[in-house]
């Protein structure tokens, strides 16, 4: 019984940690406006892109793979979307944005499952390629987006007081959770990562599963890129840079195993919110950027260590 409770405690550390850190910030940073509704909504705004990429990353990690290219793909998408909108309007922009992500995902999937390069290397290389292409086609300068409807729908707008980004998290969260826990596709993803040989012997096409999750991840990165572009009304290759670390940390904090076979979308979202909250709190504390990086790294290591220990 004690053993069982302890095990559950480990599993639920993310939720406990989230509440503890929230309370800590609420007590110590109240006079600096942490609990101000606008600040809390800001946390959502700053977290949405990470959360959406992390939901897809939950699938990738659960299938026993990894995608390091998400941040760079998001950056590339801001550029392709911005460039397309400037010549052909917002709808074409969205289409090109999605195609950007799908194309990178297909490349990643093809190289990983058909050529047989480990996804760690495939996506590491793709990270550089995506960034290079983004710098090249934008001439390393920011591309403004003048379409108001695009900016509203992708990140800038709000319904009443609630920012539109909140709904993006909500839709992706519900869809991602149901897909992973209650459909055959999700079950195949978890099985592939949990025991590849076993899954293959059960008739699951594990290569296809891996291909699919990498395409999902590329697409999610493109959507996150569009949200960046909409929120900042411009395309820049620097957007999303370094996000892959926060994305993977969010998933792992939420209880997704780096070794595959285990993952929850709800945990991932809370993990992403926790990282966003920590960033927000550190800024309110008045820490310098250099100090923020150190503090964030330390907190993430601590939280992951607690959640991963057997």
């Amino acid at each position: 019984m004690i053993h069982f409770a302890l095990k559950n405690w480990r599993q639920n550390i993310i939720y406990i940690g989230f509440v503890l850190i929230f309370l800590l910030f609420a007590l110590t940073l109240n006079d600096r406006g942490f609990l101000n509704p606008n600040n809390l909504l800001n946390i959502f705004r700053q977290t949405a892109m990470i959360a959406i990429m992390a939901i897809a990353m939950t699938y990738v990690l659960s299938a026993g793979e990894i995608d390091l290219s998400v941040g760079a793909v998001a950056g590339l998408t801001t550029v392709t979307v911005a460039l397309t909108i400037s010549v052909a309007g917002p709808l074409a922009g969205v289409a090109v944005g999605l195609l950007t992500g799908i194309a990178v995902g297909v490349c990643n999937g093809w190289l990983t499952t058909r050529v047989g390069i480990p996804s760690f290397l495939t996506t590491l290389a793709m990270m550089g390629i995506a960034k290079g292409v983004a710098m090249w086609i934008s001439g390393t300068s920011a591309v403004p987006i003048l379409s108001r409807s695009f900016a509203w729908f992708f990140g800038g707008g709000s319904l009443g007081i609630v920012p539109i980004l909140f709904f993006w998290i909500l839709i992706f969260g519900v869809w991602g959770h149901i897909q992973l826990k209650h459909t055959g596709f999700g079950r195949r993803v978890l099985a592939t990562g949990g025991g590849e040989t076993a899954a293959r012997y059960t008739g699951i096409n594990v290569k296809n599963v891996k291909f699919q999750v990498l395409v999902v991840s590329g697409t999610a990165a493109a959507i996150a890129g569009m949200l960046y572009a909409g929120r900042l009304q411009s395309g820049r290759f620097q957007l999303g840079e370094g996000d892959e670390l926060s994305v993977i940390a969010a998933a792992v904090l939420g209880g997704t195993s780096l070794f595959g076979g285990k993952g929850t979308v709800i945990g991932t979202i809370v993990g992403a919110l926790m990282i966003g909250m920590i960033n927000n709190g550190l800024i309110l504390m008045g820490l310098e950027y250099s100090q923020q990086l150190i503090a964030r790294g330390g907190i993430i290591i601590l939280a992951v260590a607690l959640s991963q220990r057997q």
Partner: protein
Amino acid sequence: MHFGSLVALDNVDLSVRAGEVHALLGGNGAGKSTLLKILNGVHQQTAGDVAVFGTPFQGNSPELARAAGVAMNFQEMSLIPSLTVAQNIFLNHEFIRNGLINEAVAVERARDLFEQLNVEVDPRMLVSDLSPGQRQLTEIAKSISHDARVWILDEPSTALSVTDVERLFESIRAHTAQGNAVIYVSHRMDEIAKISDRLTILRDGRKVTTAETRATSVSQMIEHIVGKKARDFSNLSLERKTLGAPVLELDALQDTYKLRPVSLSIREGEVVGLAGLLGSGRSSLIKLIAGVDAKASGSIRVAGKPVEFRGPADAMAEGIAHVPESRATQGIIGSHATSDNLTLSILDRISVRGLIRQQRVRALSQKQIDDFNIKVESQSTPVLNLSGGNQQKVVLGKNFGIQPKILLLDEPTAGIDIGAKTEIIDAIHSKASEGMAVLVASSELSELAVACDRFLILADGVICEDVSSDDIAAENPSGVNMVPFIQRVLEEKIQDANKTLKTESFGEKQ
């Protein structure tokens, strides 16, 4: 069927009749696994045809095989540890309603399957939390969940208790009674004799014979499998040995989980068997002595000297070698060369000033390969490519390399053919006669009966009885069929021990 230059299976005819249990026998590397994999669609044959109930079946996917009505259990490799029993059983053919998986139906159907098998396993448990026996039953339930007409059962009973095997046999008979067929693969001759109607024996990729089981004696089977007149264990004469001083002494040793305090003493040259059901604490005790698990209390003395183990390395330094239960994960590093595996335990002996000398690696590995008669193409062949029996010999060779005083064996012959089994038991005997103390845990009582001088009966973490082979033998003065006799006595003792235990714990609850 070809693998590289090796022909794994050469021109084999096999015909299984509706309504029969057809046993498939053969040593390691005889081609059994390859044949099964073709039948199950994992491999495709390079020549020849397969037909199921008259319909030709071709294709290299397990799904096609399933569609043709063939279902096969896999030996401990088709379950995903992070999913539940029910999720595993219906993996890739889930019950979908409105696009979503209906978990409740899966749990219900899984219950039905276990009911059909007459066993109890909770479908909602995670596979990683199951005992090996429950896993094996889940494998079987999974394979029969497709309503297949042909069941292929590959070593389905290695982790099952005597009662569960009996129940499995009942459901096999019920299945064939409906005009279906079962192909039964096992290394256990007594099971083959009990359940099968006909049998086919393979050797070196060729069919040796197909015969009525009733008309074939066990020694004939063994002869066909190994290809030469085999020594018949059933009339082993038990010779008296002179035992040395106590070399391993346990005093009230206890782990944090399974075992109640265990005290025992093993002398030089003595072979002691741990007999009990799965989960009785056999492996727990072995792991404790091997330094794999930490003890909670009690003490261990090696050659009279108290020792403390913080890990397997400490135990090895005291001369304790451990052949673990799970060969694949605990015994070998599959992708590494045979020679690297054989010398992994003696890196200091193959190194000169910190650098590994290939010459020494080769010389020492060759000695082990010769000593244990390991069949391998070359020293650099990955151990993964060896048959199960040869892999186990590599594990033994690796352990004998440290020249141990005490040898701990956990299921040393699981999934190994009768030829390799004999060689391994011979190796144990010869090492014991040189003064090594051996503690062996096994679910195969016939093997314990042959190998051991003394038996400890374990039930639920308690040593219930300590009985010598001589004492049991004294009850059978005729001396005929000694090994089966000892086996039966052990079986009874295990069942008695578990019965007593159940009554006791029932009393406690009242």
